[in-house]
């Protein structure tokens, strides 16, 4: 009698636990299906971290396609204009290990400049520019709008007369950065010019 009772209690315990397991499993499955993470918003987040030069050096036609590719599992180290800062930010966002940059980071911020007297007005660079930063018309001189140029150098290759240079970007006065000296360990190493009153002491 007691044996039969214990078997029933055993079976009921197993049944209850199984039912619980199946029930919670179904609930979790339904919830994960219902509140699935928004794929496009992750792509959006990756896209914001990319430098938006639209240069195509990653092998994709623009930053957005590369962001989609990263989301599909492509490497995060293919963006030379972004450099190490972008790789670190992407690694943080995606929980991946930062890898060394594939390629060479540009040493300074460059913009395209058309030597206007050599331009023949072929419009090839205008068609190549991903951000419409070049103005001009057929058989007319072309020129680059510096503020709009991202420095992607996609216009260099199609130019038949090689009249486009990549020059350092001019910095507007409003974006001026103060010149800072490295903090020196020994005070007597300081140069006299560093004795400018920072917060003048009376």
């Amino acid at each position, binding site marked *: 009698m007691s044996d039969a009772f214990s078997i029933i209690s055993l079976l009921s315990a197993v049944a209850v636990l199984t039912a619980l397991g199946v029930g919670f499993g179904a609930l979790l499955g339904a919830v994960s299906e219902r509140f699935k993470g928004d794929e496009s918003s992750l792509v959006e987040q990756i896209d914001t971290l*990319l430098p938006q030069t639209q240069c195509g050096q990653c092998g994709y036609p623009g930053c957005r396609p590369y962001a989609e590719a990263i989301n599909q599992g492509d490497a995060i180290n293919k963006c030379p204009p972004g450099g190490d800062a972008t790789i670190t930010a992407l690694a943080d966002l995606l929980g991946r290990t930062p890898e060394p940059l594939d390629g060479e980071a540009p040493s300074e911020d460059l913009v395209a400049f058309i030597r206007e007297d050599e331009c023949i007005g072929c419009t090839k660079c205008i068609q190549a520019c991903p951000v419409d930063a070049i103005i001009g018309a057929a058989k007319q001189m072309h020129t680059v709008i510096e503020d709009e140029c991202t420095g992607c150098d996609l216009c260099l290759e199609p130019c038949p007369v090689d009249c486009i240079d990549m020059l350092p970007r001019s910095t507007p006065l409003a974006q001026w950065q103060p010149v800072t000296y490295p903090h020196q360990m020994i005070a007597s190493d300081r140069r006299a010019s560093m004795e400018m009153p*920072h917060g003048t002491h*009376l």
Partner: protein
Amino acid sequence: MARTFEFHGGVYPPERKQRSQGPVRHAMLPGRVVLHLDQHAGRPAFATVAVGDSVKVGTPIARCDGMISAALHASISGQVTQVDRHTITIDSDGLDAWQRLTPLEWRTASAEERLTRLEHSGVVGLGGAGFPTHIKARVSERQRIDTLVVNAAECEPYITVDDLTLRQYTSDVLEGAQLIASLCGAKQIVVGIEDNKPEAISALRQAMAESQPLSVTVSVIATRYPSGGERQLIKTLLDRDVPDKGLPADIGVLCQNPGTLLAALRSVRDGEPLVERLVTLTGEAIADPGNRWVRIGTPMAALLDEAGLNRAALHQLIEGGPMMGTPLADLEGVVTKTTNCLIAATRKELPPAPPESPCIRCGACEEACPANLLPQQLHWYARAKDDAKLAHYRLFDCIECNACSYVCPSHIPLVADYRHAKTRLRHQQLETAKAEHAKHRFEWRQARLDREEAEKQARRQARLARQSTQQTDSQGASPQADLRSLRIAQTAAKAAVRKAEKNLARAAQQDPQQSHDDLETQLATAKENLQAAEARLAEARSAGEPQETP
């Protein structure tokens, strides 16, 4: 006497105001003035004169360019000898002939008339920030103002400009305050003044009874640096806290400097544009210190020489006060609308800062900080370039008053660190904005190419359709287009246009001063996409119709 309240922190530097207490005089007319186009907050003015033009005192030479900008006027009569991207140079003819605007009876003139006058007179805040006064006076169009605070605290050592303005032009300053108060809709005027200016206080007490129509209260506050900071003064006078990243207007207060009020009154009542201002000339290297009316654009060297500058004794020339002012590298500068003081200090007077030692975490800076920040934490994170922590410790709430650097026993140039970190962060924001801008342009171009492609396709389809109807034996050669998915795409594009329009309208309402080029581009992109979708749909319909009819 009105009740006053306490703000946190503050320091007591030596005042050194005694040397410049003499009566106000006019400085000699300069032989040449150099007027900067960007001597105010906002966008630089746009030059409207050419080389060779002859001008009188008060002739407009540059106009406002954009909303936040200020006009500029010739400050001497003579001939324009140079105009470049940043400056206009005028050589004097020695006549000092004036060109005034018609005087206005400000109590009867309409508000718009008075505001236009302020705009055309180039009046800006003379306390140091140089914010265009006509914009500030228009604040009532957006926010309700109940109190006009006249900021006469003048807490910086050395400077006596506001003190002397109040002593000599008491009733005019109060009349100017009534003028600005009537423009911004304030119900009361409160003058905040430190107790180290007894003569100005008694002059104010005498004049306040006659000031009409609003009642004027004179609040005497304890002398403590930086009681003249806008937030600190409002806390002291009214016990109201300006919210983080907010403006005094958010809590119904407008602050004006006495000099600005005087200039505003003169421009409206007398038709005199802002061509001269009071400047304190002081410091041990000057033999004849005091306050002078100086024409805007006067070279500093000439001005200081007139005041008896001893160049051998001069160690450091400072524009502004010793706490927040700018040390100048040489004497080549000119007086601008925001130059309130020139200190020609000897080495003994303002010795160079001793070498910096490591922070000992004494906490003296925290006790001195009037903005309730933790300067030593900011110091670590600024040097470590830890941006998240800097934001957490409210770096951008720092008013750069230098109280922390002043009390630091290790002589750490704290504010220099903060300024550096601030510029770095602003630079980063600019970079982000630029990347965003490039992205929108890229998207816009893609949308345009798509639309062009779709239109080309539509034209080709139409041509094909025409040809096939001519042959009359069309067997439905064109593939059945999926009308349903195209209709969905068109609806989605329409929704995107509506969303972009909504975003732009909201942003423009929230922040009318900013340009919303990026949002405009986004809207244009959405419209392009809609056009492309509509073209495709029309094409599919026209291709589908011959099949549906039989």
